């Protein structure tokens, strides 16, 4: 293809295409650049406006205040521990389920698949779920952050599709050698499935890291709030103040007292910093897993 000469029209189209894509990528990135600049800028100086791409009065104060705040640290500790626990357990449990579903000739497989698939079509809804959580006493405990998010049938289907693609002869020869079903799964299937396991781990991990809902409605204890919920509480408090006219430059002292008892740093600058801190882990992980999730994993699931 490269050997063919481009016509003038081709060149125009190509240039136009690159330009639009470049602008599109700028749109996707810019809000984070803007926040990055604000998070490294002195909060009071930022209120004069005019900061668009880089900090004007550089400071690390926002970050040092954020990382020294026990509430912020606790929220991140909850999020980190929750993400690790749920991702590990969920990938393990989902892969077991997917392996079971992928076994050919399993009696009743059609009914078992329907049992799971139906839950993706119909759900009890919010209130019955809330009542369930109360009845099993997981409201306002760490359990509500972990148990309800352990399974997602979509993930199981993605894994099952991948397992289906592994040549059956591999596990069969192991069975002939007398390997148990568990060791076939752990020694043959899992090591061959790293791409799909990494993809599902990413999906689950990001979902849990970003979940603000559980913390907002099923947890009232301050010390169990995950970071995403904590951020939401910071912004809703701020927007309430904007709405009632008490926000803005006139009442920074007022805001910082209600929010975090901070001096020298504006709550606004702290919110920008918090957004950067909460986004960074995701930014560090997904580009490296891109080749896995792009390569056919999703397409395979659609064919199912």
């Amino acid at each position, binding site marked *: 293809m490269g050997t063919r000469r481009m016509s003038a029209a081709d060149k125009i189209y190509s240039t136009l295409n690159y330009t639009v*894509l470049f602008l599109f990528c700028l749109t996707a990135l810019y809000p984070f650049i803007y*926040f990055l600049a604000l998070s490294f800028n002195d909060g009071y100086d930022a209120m004069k406006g005019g900061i668009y791409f880089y900090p004007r009065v550089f400071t690390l104060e926002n970050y040092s205040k954020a990382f020294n705040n026990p509430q912020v640290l606790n929220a991140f500790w909850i999020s980190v521990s929750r993400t690790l626990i749920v991702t590990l357990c969920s990938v393990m449990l989902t892969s*077991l389920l997917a392996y079971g579903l992928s076994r050919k000739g399993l009696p009743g497989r059609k009914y078992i698949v329907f049992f799971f698939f139906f839950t993706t079509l119909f759900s009890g*809804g919010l209130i019955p779920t809330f009542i369930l959580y109360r009845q099993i006493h997981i409201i306002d405990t760490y359990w509500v952050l972990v148990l309800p998010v352990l*399974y997602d049938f979509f993930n199981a289907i993605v894994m099952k599709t991948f397992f289906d693609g592994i040549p059956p002869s591999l596990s069969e020869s192991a069975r*002939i050698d007398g390997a148990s079903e568990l060791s076939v799964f752990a020694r043959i299937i899992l090591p061959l499935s790293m791409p799909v396991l990494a993809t599902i781990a990413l999906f689950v991990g990001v979902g849990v890291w970003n979940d603000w809902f559980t913390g907002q409605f099923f947890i009232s204890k301050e010390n169990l709030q995950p970071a995403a919920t904590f951020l939401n509480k910071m912004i809703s408090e701020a*927007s309430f103040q904007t*709405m009632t006219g008490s926000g803005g430059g006139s009442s920074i002292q007022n805001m910082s007292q209600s929010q975090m008892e901070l001096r020298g740093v504006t709550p606004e600058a702290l919110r920008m910093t918090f957004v950067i801190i909460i986004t960074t882990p995701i930014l560090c992980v997904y580009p490296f897993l891109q080749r896995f999730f792009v390569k056919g994993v999703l397409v395979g699931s659609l064919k199912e």
Partner: protein
Amino acid sequence: MIVKEAKVEVMPIPKKKSETWSRVWYFRHAYLFMLPAVIWYLVFSYYPMYGVLIAFKDFKYNLGIMGSPWEGLRFFKQFLNDSSFYSVLKNTLSISGLKLLFGFPAPLVLALMLNAVMRSKIKRIFQTISYLPHFVSWVVVVTLMQKILSPNVGLVNDIREKMGLDSIFFMGMPSLFYPLVISSDIWKGIGWGSIIYLAALTNIDPHLYEAAEMDGAGRWSKLFKITLPTLVPTIGILLIFSLSGILNAGFDQIWLMQTPATLSVSEILDTYVLKTGIQQGQFAYSTAIGLFKSAISLVLIITVNKVAKKVSDVSLW
């Protein structure tokens, strides 16, 4: 498949119906692997489905789901006679309709544009950047929006003031609510949505294009005669999903974006259910609305799937 397997199995898979139980025994480990999932789904999915019964009951905690007195269709009548319910329904349909209209084609366009990029390194950089918004939480997206559009030295108003224009409280204006919802939804989802189309595009045999070029096909006829027809099954399946989710206007996004000033256009079924149920404690009423929504969604997906199966060979099951 089974025959082939059976040849090499130590313990051949029994095949006669009378041997069902020994087959079950043969697969006992597979069942055991699925057991935690079955228990989890019974508790976290099926028990709440049983719990929808409270939509027909005057639910009292101390009496439990079964013990609470029956109320029949009282709560369904209550919301069907409530004018605010219709405005909520209208908002829900407006938002998801607009999302379908503008948001659905967006990833397709992006995929076609990315597909035209010949240099694979640049293409990959574009793609990586385009996925970023998908991976951040709606809480973060709405925080970004609130700051950028803030009347209090937000980016847009900062520039407006420098140009001598008045500051505007964008997030508090009902007329701007839908444009902001649609554009932020596209911003967040376009890159991720394009993955599936890009994957389908890589399956197109390049010889098809070469042959078409020999026959003198131009850019547009290649697009309409080769590229788009190949994508039809993918588009079809995604459309089935979107159509059956028409009552989901996007809870996270709407809940986080709505302000008291925009409630008249921003209240959707999911936010209404949450407010009446958890915040006001009208459990039965809220469950009735939720059940109404789930039931219609279920009927929708079955119908859309059936119609799709009939008019084309695209279907979910």
